[in-house]
């Protein structure tokens, strides 16, 4: 990035002009300064000169100076204070525009000293007679809250803001709602927006009269309301429906959210329910004729809507047809929705389109179109035959990437319709040599292994892959291993040598633990009981279905409640990715009154079984299915090994309390003129707390306590003042608990968990440092998805791995897992190999760093081994110390 500096001469010249007596010259100079600022040049050196221009009755000049102030006040806090008087005076100006401007600008100056002076003017402006001032002041409360939340609460501004929801002016109402919503985001459990039928009525009235942006805030707020019954629900829907015809697409989508959510409560046989369904389609279609960026967001949301209520858009397939000049991101989304809407009624049309797309220029798009044909075959049984022949046509084009995609999807079609289309295998085999992508190679190998008995030269084909075994990707290696074992079980006489070869390649020459493990299991299976091996490996596989592409229903419900938000664009719950949303509440669709339908799907289970081991869900490849069909007799000779291997449930025991180290003396009385401080750290319900014991060992009373931290590795900072309310008399001891936040300034410390603290009282300021257990930074949502865990573990380079010993620990692995879980160290999976339990664990730190760990526990051996892997290897040591401390206490 370029760095901009203004040369000294230019600064000097501007300085002279700013101090000119001529008004016009002054204004032009300030304009030049602003112009430099907007392009990113640093003109902070002119601060005093610009602020001097502030006292003026020329509004334009005033506004320009304010613009400057907002940008630079933070870097020059002491000088910014010079501006306070003018602000306070302006807040009393007879012109409402000036009053509003002053309070608005003051809120943008993020300097503590200024915010202190802001409180009184703000209080007046919130009750100003002019609604323009009130609406500006409402937003100012949100600004102030961002700078100093405690101050806002102490000053009672939140209550005033709540009162503004009943203001007579709709614009004031809208801004109050917007400000409260923003504040509520950082206080998920506060009932700031406590909605009741009266306030809902006020919001609905304001909705008709406020600006388009205000309508968005109000609609988003309405969406959080839980109507008491279906009648209230219907009446809200009726009043929201006109918003569907708004020209602003954000208003439309927010209205769709409210309707989708409240519809849930309406009885399906109600006439109004049908009317509402019909009303939803046209505005959604219209969104697709807007600018491409709007289309993209609309399409991501429509994707959710068609999964929840396919009936809304089932007749609108054609609007999702891809146009030649759509941007690629729109094309890909449209394709996805086409598949979701595909049905027996429209499949011919869809297939014709997809075939058309498969001959376009854009490679990504062509690939996805080919995949889409496969998904159609799986979704609409009647079309399978036509899909397969279309795919064969495409293979004939010999375009390399088209062929590879086609083979990948044909493999899925085989799994959905076994023994139906195997006649095409010969054609597929012709293209064996042109496959250079791992996924396509793996798919082809799977096909050869699965249908080995029908392919005369299956052994030759597989052998040809074996030559470059070590250069293949893991996916291909695993598939090759399985395929050759299948081949051996089918044609044992000719392929003994081949299977020996692959087993030794997998178990002896490979560094990949997954491959080794799978190799050993096959080896043992084959040598112990070939009949059982046959039953396991060649077991009938469960059919795949299109459901693997669908969003899991509980997540879908949550996402429907978040239509129009970033969550809906990423198809992830907000808690998963929005930074700073501390403990977002999970939203659920309201249940129909009187109905007791549970929504926990049996589908989740198949999702785990299908997806865990093979990579893609459809790639389970005979292996993922094993536990379901494994004969019981097999467990015995294996010593329970296999059973444990697949029991990945992880020990979820009774929650124990998180580990809290005992208090230690941090500041001895001798060093602090009689003040003794001891303390510890704890994490309680997601809040980090510093627990202090203050003892007065001096002869005089101590008052005015305050605390401050130096910058530290994880940005720890007091989230509020130190609550020592009454003076501390001699020989008195009090216990104080100080909540901490992790949003303070960051600086790397040595050791990493070192914290330097300053405590002040009426006598002096004292400094000490202490070390906190890093476990208090482990957040509650630190449980990683298994697939993600596997991928991340592989992804982190090996040099980031460190190994430690934990000695003399007499817990079994389940007890250890429970204990660790209580401190937010989550066990993702557990497996047992040769009497050794391996626990795979994940931890998430408050700053978003993930730490992965493997704990090995050998029965009867009190020494554990822990391997820690993290992208920031410097935390490994601290994490190990914590695990040790947690386990031993």
């Amino acid at each position, binding site marked *: 990035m370029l760095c901009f500096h203004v040369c000294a001469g230019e600064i000097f010249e501007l300085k002279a002009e700013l101090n000119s007596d001529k008004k016009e010259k002054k204004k032009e100079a300030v304009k030049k300064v602003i112009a430099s600022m907007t392009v990113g040049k640093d003109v902070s050196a002119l601060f005093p000169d610009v602020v001097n221009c502030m006292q003026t009755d020329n*509004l334009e000049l005033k506004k320009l100076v304010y613009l400057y102030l907002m940008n630079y006040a933070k870097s020059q806090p002491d000088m910014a204070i010079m501006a306070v008087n003018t602000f306070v005076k302006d807040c009393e100006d007879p012109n409402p525009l000036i009053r509003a401007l002053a309070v608005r600008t003051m809120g943008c100056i993020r300097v503590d000293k200024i915010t202190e002076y802001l409180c009184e003017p703000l209080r007046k402006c919130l009750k100003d007679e002019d609604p323009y001032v009130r609406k500006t002041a409402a937003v100012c409360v*949100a600004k102030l809250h961002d700078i100093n939340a405690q101050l806002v609460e102490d000053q009672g501004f939140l209550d005033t803001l709540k009162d503004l929801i009943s203001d007579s002016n709709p614009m004031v109402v809208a801004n109050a709602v917007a400000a409260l919503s923003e504040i509520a985001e950082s206080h998920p459990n506060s009932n700031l927006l406590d909605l009741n039928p009266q306030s809902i009525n006020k919001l609905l009235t304001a909705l008709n009269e406020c600006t388009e942006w205000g309508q968005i805030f109000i609609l988003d707020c309405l969406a959080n309301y839980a109507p008491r019954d279906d009648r209230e629900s219907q009446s809200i829907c009726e009043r929201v429906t006109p918003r569907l015809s708004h020209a602003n697409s954000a208003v439309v989508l927010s209205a769709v959210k409210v309707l989708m959510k409240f519809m849930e409560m309406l009885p399906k046989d109600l006439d109004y329910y049908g009317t509402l369904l019909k009303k939803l389609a046209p505005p959604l279609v219209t969104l697709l004729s807007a600018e491409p960026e709007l289309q993209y967001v609309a399409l991501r949301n429509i994707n959710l809507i068609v999964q929840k209520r396919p009936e809304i858009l089932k007749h609108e397939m054609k609007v999702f*047809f891809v146009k030649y000049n759509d941007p690629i991101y729109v094309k890909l989304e449209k394709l996805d929705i086409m598949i979701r809407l595909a049905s027996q009624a429209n499949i011919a049309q869809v297939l014709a389109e997809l075939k058309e797309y498969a001959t376009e220029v854009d490679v990504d798009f062509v690939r996805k179109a080919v995949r889409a044909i496969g998904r159609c075959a799986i979704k609409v049984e009647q079309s399978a035959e036509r899909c397969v022949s279309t795919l064969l046509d495409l293979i004939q084009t010999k375009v390399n990437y088209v062929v590879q995609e086609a083979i990948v999807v044909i493999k899925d079609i085989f799994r959905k319709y076994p023994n139906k289309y195997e006649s095409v295998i010969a054609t597929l085999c012709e293209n064996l040599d042109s496959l250079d992508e791992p996924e396509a190679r793996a798919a082809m190998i799977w096909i050869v292994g699965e249908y080995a008995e029908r392919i005369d030269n299956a052994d030759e084909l597989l052998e040809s892959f074996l030559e470059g075994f070590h250069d293949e990707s893991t996916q291909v290696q695993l598939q090759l291993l399985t395929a050759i074992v299948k081949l051996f079980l089918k044609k044992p006489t000719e392929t003994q040598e081949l299977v020996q070869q692959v087993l030794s390649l997998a178990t002896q020459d490979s560094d990949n633990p997954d491959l080794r493990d799978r190799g050993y299991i096959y080896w043992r299976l084959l040598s112990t009981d070939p009949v059982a091996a046959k039953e396991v490996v060649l077991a009938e596989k469960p059919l795949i279905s299109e459901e693997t592409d669908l969003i899991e229903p509980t997540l879908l419900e949550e996402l429907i409640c978040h239509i129009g938000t970033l969550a809906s664009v990423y198809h992830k719950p907000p808690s998963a990715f929005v930074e700073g949303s501390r403990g977002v509440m999970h939203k659920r669709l309201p249940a129909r009154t009187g109905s007791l339908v549970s929504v926990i799907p049996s589908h989740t289970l198949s999702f785990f079984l299908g997806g865990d081991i093979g990579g893609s869900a459809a790639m389970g490849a005979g292996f993922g299915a094993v536990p379901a069909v494994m004969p019981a007799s097999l467990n015995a000779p294996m010593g329970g090994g296999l059973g444990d291997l697949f029991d990945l449930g992880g020990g979820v025991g009774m929650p124990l309390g998180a580990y809290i180290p005992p208090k230690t003396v941090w500041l001895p009385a001798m060093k602090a003129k009689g003040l003794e401080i001891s303390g510890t750290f704890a994490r309680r319900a997601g809040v980090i707390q510093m627990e202090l014991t203050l003892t007065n060992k001096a002869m005089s009373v101590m008052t005015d306590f305050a605390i401050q931290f130096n910058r530290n590795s994880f940005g720890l900072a007091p989230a509020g003042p130190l609550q020592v309310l009454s003076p501390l008399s001699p020989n008195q001891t009090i216990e104080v608990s100080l909540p901490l936040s992790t949003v303070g300034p960051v600086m790397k410390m040595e050791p990493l968990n070192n914290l330097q603290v300053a405590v002040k009282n009426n006598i002096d300021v004292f400094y000490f440092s202490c070390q906190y257990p890093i476990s208090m930074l482990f957040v509650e949502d630190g449980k990683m998805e298994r697939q993600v865990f596997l991928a991340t573990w592989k992804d982190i380079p090996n040099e980031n791995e460190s190994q430690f010993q934990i000695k003399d620990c007499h817990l079994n692995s389940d007890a250890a897992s429970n204990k660790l879980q209580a401190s937010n160290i989550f066990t993702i999976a557990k497996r047992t190999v040769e009497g050794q339990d391996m626990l795979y664990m994940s931890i998430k730190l408050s700053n978003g760093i993930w730490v992965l760990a493997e704990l090995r526990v050998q029965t009867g051996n009190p020494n554990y081994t822990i391997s820690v892997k993290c992208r920031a290897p410097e935390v490994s040591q601290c994490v190990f110390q914590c695990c040790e401390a947690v386990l031993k206490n």
Partner: protein
Amino acid sequence: MIHSLFLVNPSGDIFLEKHWKSVVSRSVCDYFLEAREKALDPEDVPPVISTPHHYLISIYRDKLFFLSVIQTEVPPLFVIEFLHRVAEMIQDYFGECSETVIKDNVVMVYELLEEMLDNGFPLATESNVLKEMIRPPTILRSVVNTLTGSSNVGDKLPTGQLSTIPWRRAGVKYTNNEAYFDVVEEIDAILDRTGTTVFAEIQGVVEACVKLSGMPDLTLSFMNPRLLDDVSFHPCVRYKRWESERVLSFIPPDGNFTLMTYHVNAQNLVAIPVYVKHSINFFESGSGGRLDLTVGPKQTMGKTVEGVLVTVHMPKTVLSVSLNATQGSYTYDNATKVLVWDIGKLNPQKLPNLRGSLSLQTGAPKPEENPSLNIDLKIQQLAISGLKVNRLDMFGEKYKPFKGVKYITKAGKFQVRM
């Protein structure tokens, strides 16, 4: 809410930044520039990008990227709508939206941005409110300002800011009172190889230019309003009247605005005004091929089709073309592989034809992908859906305004597969 805005030109330079909360370092744009590098075309940059600490939401408009930075959960459509509003504001104030214009007026743009958002919340986005706060530049005004020392910044609270009709300012006066409405329809269509319609719809818009004194209350009715499948209105339109009587009743903003947009997607109502006879062949040997195009009128309701422009995206291996056009002229851009044939007016008696040979890169195989053909056209005095304005009435004011309605049909995304 919206944290910051960066304006980025196509070569990746950031030429303006505005922060509504704390200052975000411009290095955050690196994530965007990286995505820009990856995309083939500037149009293909994904509009929502996540970075470790922020989300970047961008639009590409008038050859510029408008890139906003957000930190908390904000409806992305809200951000995108706002960014388009910024572009429209610049267009409205300075006559065009380009890097040069913005750089020339950088302080005023900055002042305007400050008026549009407060702490990331929209403050004033209505053009008439903004114009009362900060007056648009005119040569006369800048002369007057220099002489009198007055400024471009209004010091009164704009009247529209708080009224329930924020789109209209009070005290409007004209000597000639007039109201013009343009009904503009665009046909989006995909025709397949045989000329059959795969998909067709009409996007319609009613643009208004209303210069009426005082507080006029207008009613506009159509002969056949049931034709419309979906409508979106300017906030001034009273929705209840439309629901019950299918008339547009409104107090208009002053000047130019979009009164409504609508959508007709019943396939049988969408007339296709032209047909294309086309053949494109490549020789098996792979050295070249032949192209033959003819365009003719189809359902034109007796009107003339004008401004016909045919754009063909050729396969990548087509090196040059040697064609002969019976009407209009053609150009072939070897870099983008786009053939443009500018025909002009269609004469039903003598159909325009373009034919000749294509030459391929030596050694290149016969192209697999099919070229695609896009058509632009214009038909004056016709709304292809058949929509007709019935009457326009004015209430609330005494004078007699001059009224006029114009119709025009254009091709939108009109695509023919070859």
